[in-house]
């Protein structure tokens, strides 16, 4: 990569890290014809990776992550015509996410949903205080790859187990990977109730889904 191309690549990374939609789009325009579409996407992805690290370290926050993701989506739309179909960044998988019945806590689950959305997953956030039947319906309808169950209370974490048991009863367990999270939930609890994965926080949850789906 020559010096001009390297500067353009770096500008693309920086624009995403700065969470600046206009700058990202103008840098994409400036890069067309000099960087290949693949190189442009790689630079944007590198920027998003850096944004993810800054989020994990408490240097950037959810609104910034969303603006960066929006910048990336808008930028990719500009070069869509130049891309082969396989490169347009379709969904990496379908995730159903919700807080189990009896638990009205929303924020942690919403952060995980948003981070997964930013990471390229198609997320159906079915809300909080969600009846087990609604989870099963959403999994079935969306042919979900992953079901995320959140619980913030020791009283409601047992419902995560009930959802898994119901999936088994209905013969749906093998079709979907189940991940669990929430303040009182631990890896040991996740193992005990037969979930496929657990993570400490939103960033780890994204890595977990990547791992489970081989992304």
């Amino acid at each position, binding site marked *: 990569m020559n010096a001009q191309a390297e500067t353009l690549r770096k500008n693309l990374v920086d624009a995403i890290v700065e969470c600046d939609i206009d700058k990202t789009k103008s840098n994409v325009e400036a890069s067309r014809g000099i960087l290949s579409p693949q190189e442009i996407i790689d630079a944007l992805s590198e920027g998003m990776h850096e944004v993810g690290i800054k989020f994990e*370290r408490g240097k*950037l*926050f*959810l609104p910034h992550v969303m603006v960066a993701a929006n910048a990336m989506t808008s930028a990719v739309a500009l070069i869509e015509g130049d891309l082969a179909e396989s490169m347009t960044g379709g969904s990496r998988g379908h995730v159903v996410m919700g807080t189990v019945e009896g638990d*009205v806590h*929303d924020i942690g689950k*919403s952060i995980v949903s948003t981070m997964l959305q930013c990471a390229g997953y198609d997320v159906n956030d079915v809300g909080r205080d969600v009846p087990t039947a609604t989870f099963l319906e959403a999994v079935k309808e969306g042919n979900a790859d992953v079901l995320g169950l959140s619980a913030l209370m*020791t009283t409601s974490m047992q419902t995560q187990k009930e959802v898994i048991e119901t999936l088994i009863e209905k013969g749906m367990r093998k079709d979907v990977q189940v991940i669990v999270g929430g303040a009182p939930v631990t890896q*040991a609890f996740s193992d005990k109730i037969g979930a496929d994965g657990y993570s400490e926080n939103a960033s780890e949850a994204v890595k977990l889904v990547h791992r489970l789906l081989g992304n």
Partner: protein
Amino acid sequence: MAKEYALRMGDGKRVHLTKEQIYEDVMAGSEDAADLADVPVLDSNDVDEIVEILMIPGRMVGVESGREVPVTHDIGTLRIDGDQGNSGVGIPSSRLIGMMMHERAFGADSMELGHIDYSFKPVKPVIAQEMQSMEVVQQNMIVPVVYGAMPNMGLYYRPDGPFDNPGDLMKAFKIKEAQQATEDAADHLTRDMVWIMQKMMKSGSDGVNFDTCGAAGDGDLYGTLRAVEALRKEFPEMYIETGMAGEMVLGLHGEIAYDGQVLAGLWPHQQAKLMAKAGSNIYGPAINTNTAQTSAWNLGRAVTFVKAAVEESPIPIHVNMGMGVGGIPMFETPTIDAVSHASKAMVEVAGVDGI
């Protein structure tokens, strides 16, 4: 074979480590905190002291004579009556009896009156009952009794409240609208908390404990700091304790500022100064436990955060020690070995003023 000591993992499981392994984990935890919050790592004397504390074989340890600190209980009023589903022991009793047991049998130095939902907003419809309870409590208790509840700003978003849920708005890339909803909710939160505390102060409360501040992000803390400021102005002598929900202020708004200071991303040593500026008397840091790490790692990390806060705080620090915070495992009823070893380290190494 090197001698091993029985410690805990962050989820409460037993783990056996050598002295060298304990030392390495305490150091690694300290380095993690120092890196995140940009505070000093613990010096070798502090690390040695934590290691020595963790190696004490007793199930329960205590601080050295003369180093005792005040101990208080958030929602201790309900610990006796509530069963395991409510993190309690299930002995039928009133809130008053629960408080008196804490005062006269368990040695609590101050207490709070809290209601079963433990959020401020739901106090509004039952305010007369809470005022009456506070009066009765104050007639029977000797130690200071404050009113306590969580700001819990999530209750102001749909479907529980009038404002659109910022989580949903952000997922639709409506960032400005999400920030506006946060600001609107914070205004309502401040108004409700001030109103409730005006009533409770009329009923003889010694003050307020704002518990788990920032649970709904930076807007939640913003609303609370403004309530602290207003209450301090109106009641110069009241006790105001502000305890946090987690180690770092979550940035769900991302840009909201109090007194020119952006709240998102603040760590305990920075939070302490802001709490004092708003008018709090006591600041309560809450350091999250990582369930995949050992208690040595978690304690080294927690003490590093808290020691830095103690050194920079203009007001006393009463650290949160319990389920999943302060180096204590995430477990419904944490084991006494984990609680007492961690508490000793917080007092003797971090130098907290209370628990």
